[in-house]
């Protein structure tokens, strides 16, 4: 009798917990925080392998310098030889592209692909889902052995390139495993899959590998792998057109 009573009381106590709402806004903030290094400067080297149908895979290596507190970044392409020296500089809302063959720095956008890869400039910026999107709906699913929250997002501003985004976030640590980017009309345009292997930096777990699949240009995809990552103070001169021209 006592045992039954104890179980009953415990169940009553747990009852509210079972019905407690998951704070998805907080989960989104957690996702954003994974790539937010505050006032620290971020440097990383990425290896990008791009595959396209009927073409040989292309290997690219880029170096990324990022200063989130001033919303700046520099991407310098180091390989292949044909694209060595090309780069991107973001200052504020404007992104510039430099090509040593023309010697000119011209404006571009965050949606432009880096080299011939499926990765866009915005893929190297910090996440801003909690600012740029509203949660439309949520559900649960499973990716491999990981239970995930599926968070359906709708763009909160016209700044966002994909009006609808579906984020698949691990329930245990709120790290995204997959992102599906949709057009305004609802068609799937892009899928980003994050491998559950991580690099720990400044108490954050950063996915070491992720794959970007182009769902419009079927068969095109890029696999990105972080080769090196550091948080050391960078010189201000790095975020200048002059550095972009010199960076090799």
């Amino acid at each position, binding site marked *: 009798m006592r045992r039954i009573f104890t179980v009953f009381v415990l169940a009553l106590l747990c009852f509210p917990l079972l019905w407690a709402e998951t704070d998805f806004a907080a989960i989104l903030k957690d996702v954003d925080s994974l790539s937010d290094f505050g006032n620290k400067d971020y440097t990383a080297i990425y290896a990008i392998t791009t595959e396209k*149908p009927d073409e040989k895979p292309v290997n690219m290596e880029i170096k990324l310098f990022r200063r989130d507190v001033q919303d700046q970044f520099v991407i310098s392409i180091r390989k292949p030889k044909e694209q060595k020296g090309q780069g991107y500089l973001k200052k504020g*809302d404007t992104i510039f592209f430099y090509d040593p063959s023309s010697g000119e720095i011209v*404006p571009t*956008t965050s*949606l432009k692909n880096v080299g011939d890869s499926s990765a866009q400039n915005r893929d190297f910026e910090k996440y801003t889902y909690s600012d740029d999107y509203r949660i439309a709906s949520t559900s649960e699913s499973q990716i491999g052995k990981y239970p995930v929250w599926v968070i359906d997002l709708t*763009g909160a*501003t*016209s*700044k*966002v*390139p*994909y*009006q609808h985004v579906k984020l698949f976030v691990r329930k245990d640590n709120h790290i995204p495993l997959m992102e599906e*980017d949709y*057009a*305004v*009309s*609802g*068609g799937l*345009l892009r899928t980003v899959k994050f491998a559950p292997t991580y690099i720990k930096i400044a108490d954050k777990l950063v996915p070491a590998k992720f794959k970007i699949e182009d769902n*419009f*240009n*079927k*068969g095109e995809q890029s696999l990105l792998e972080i080769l090196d990552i550091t948080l050391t103070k960078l010189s201000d001169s790095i975020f200048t057109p002059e550095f972009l021209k010199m960076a090799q």
Partner: protein
Amino acid sequence: MEIVKLALRNLLRQKRRTVLLGGAIAFCIMIVTVIDGFAGAFVDNLNANFADAFAGHVYIIGKEKNADKKIADVIRNDAVIMTALEDSKVSYKYISKRTSDDEANISYQGRTSLQTLTGIDFKEEPHFTDRVVLTSGSKEEMKSDPQGMLISKQVGSKLGVGVGDKVAVQTRTINGQYNLGEFNIRGVTTDSNMLFTACYVQMKYLNSLLGLAPGEYQSFGIYLNNPNDMDSAGAALFKELSDHAQVFPRDISKKGTNAFVAFLNQGKNDTWKGTKYQITTINDILPQVQQTSNILKAVGTGMLILLFIIIMVGILNTFRIIMFERIREIGTMRALGMQRKEVRNLFLFEAGFMSIVGLIFGFLLAGIVMLVISSITFPPASDISIALKAGHITFLPSVAQTILNILIVVGLTLVAASIPARNAAKLEPAAALRAVR
């Protein structure tokens, strides 16, 4: 009159010399006429091709800036434009309304192509439907299919599509967001040039993909009756529209900056509410078109003068020789009563007639050369297609330039012949008769 007959007879006496000198003049005038003709047609063809590509000689684009500082091209209500057009009294053939996405990604069975998608209201613009040439498909089916597409032959080949196929298209809204659509190929066109290869679709459906409401569009084009009026038309429209709406300044050129880039970037650093209009013409964004033509014409004239200075040396020496050859003849004529002035004129008439014969043959040769060159057909998207007319180089020599060239040739010939002519006139009859050749 006798002098004229004598001059003509003298020219025929030394046929080879006359042919050689006249031939040199003919060659010179042929080169210059062909260059002048090309320069004249160059501007016309360029203007015509740009007018076709951008749907007009004068363009009005509406721009809005949203809270995120993004500029969107949109004309939501064109009543103010129509009023300004009427008040400006610009003489035009027709107007065009266009929506476009210049980075639309068209996909078909794994093949993709980045193209400009241009939305047209086919029922409202019969002039477009009349102009476009289809190699296959049907204009009627295109008009009746809301999701129809006219694709250029070049793009169709690249994608491997034909009439009846369905293509997927990735576009972006006016706010830069990605969108997806589907189109049915209703026709394959020959339309393409170096500027871009446009695919034409129904404006209503494209508007829905770009986030524009039905009836809205992005650029308003005016086809003038006379393209040479584009500067005055642009100025008149600017004046009328400025009285009723916000308008960007037309003088966008700054030292060291490309006019076309300045046109594309206009408004980036400004803030405004509502729609602000940008009025421009081909001459505004491509001032180098007219400059190129002027340079070509100047080069032609320069070449003419340079070549002719060389020919002048030949004429001078030839007439000197003629003078020495005919020294006794001159003495005889002087002894028979011919005055100095008449001797001088005889030489000058000879030179003049030779230059005229050279001119006539030069123009004939130029005509043949221009005919041959203009019969060559260039592929639609060749590097020089923007300067061609229906795939052919055309020529349009200007009357003023031709008259100038004639005056230069005749003038310089007479100048060259004037020295030996004067010397011949100065000869004393007795001394001339005694001269030994």
